[in-house]
């Protein structure tokens, strides 16, 4: 990913069982915060704009 210029933090993994709604909400908040901190994703978008 780094090789392609994408911050690894843009891909997040977690394991939440179907009974763990509280954990789910926590993880959503964490993931959102982590990605918010990285700022908008600007990779590949330009290429796409050209293609489009």
């Amino acid at each position, binding site marked *: 990913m780094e090789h392609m210029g994408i911050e690894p*933090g843009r891909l*997040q993994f977690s*394991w939440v*069982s*179907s009974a763990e*709604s509280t954990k789910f*909400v926590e993880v959503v908040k964490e993931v959102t915060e982590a*990605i918010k901190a990285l700022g908008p994703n600007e990779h590949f978008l330009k290429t796409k704009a050209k293609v489009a």
Partner: protein
Amino acid sequence: MSEWEPKIAAFLCNWCSYGAADLAGVGRMEYPPNIRVIRIPCTGRMSPKFFLSAIREGADGVWVSG
């Protein structure tokens, strides 16, 4: 919108996290509205291609949860 809000593609396992997401709803728990859920049968279905394509399509992040 005054502040920039990220858009996150969430690949959730139908049996685990998708269920947790439903349950969070039943419990009326609030969380940020940034995720867009894509239901997959199992995280085993997840392929790197999905991640790359989501990033290419302008998602600011990808979250995979089993």
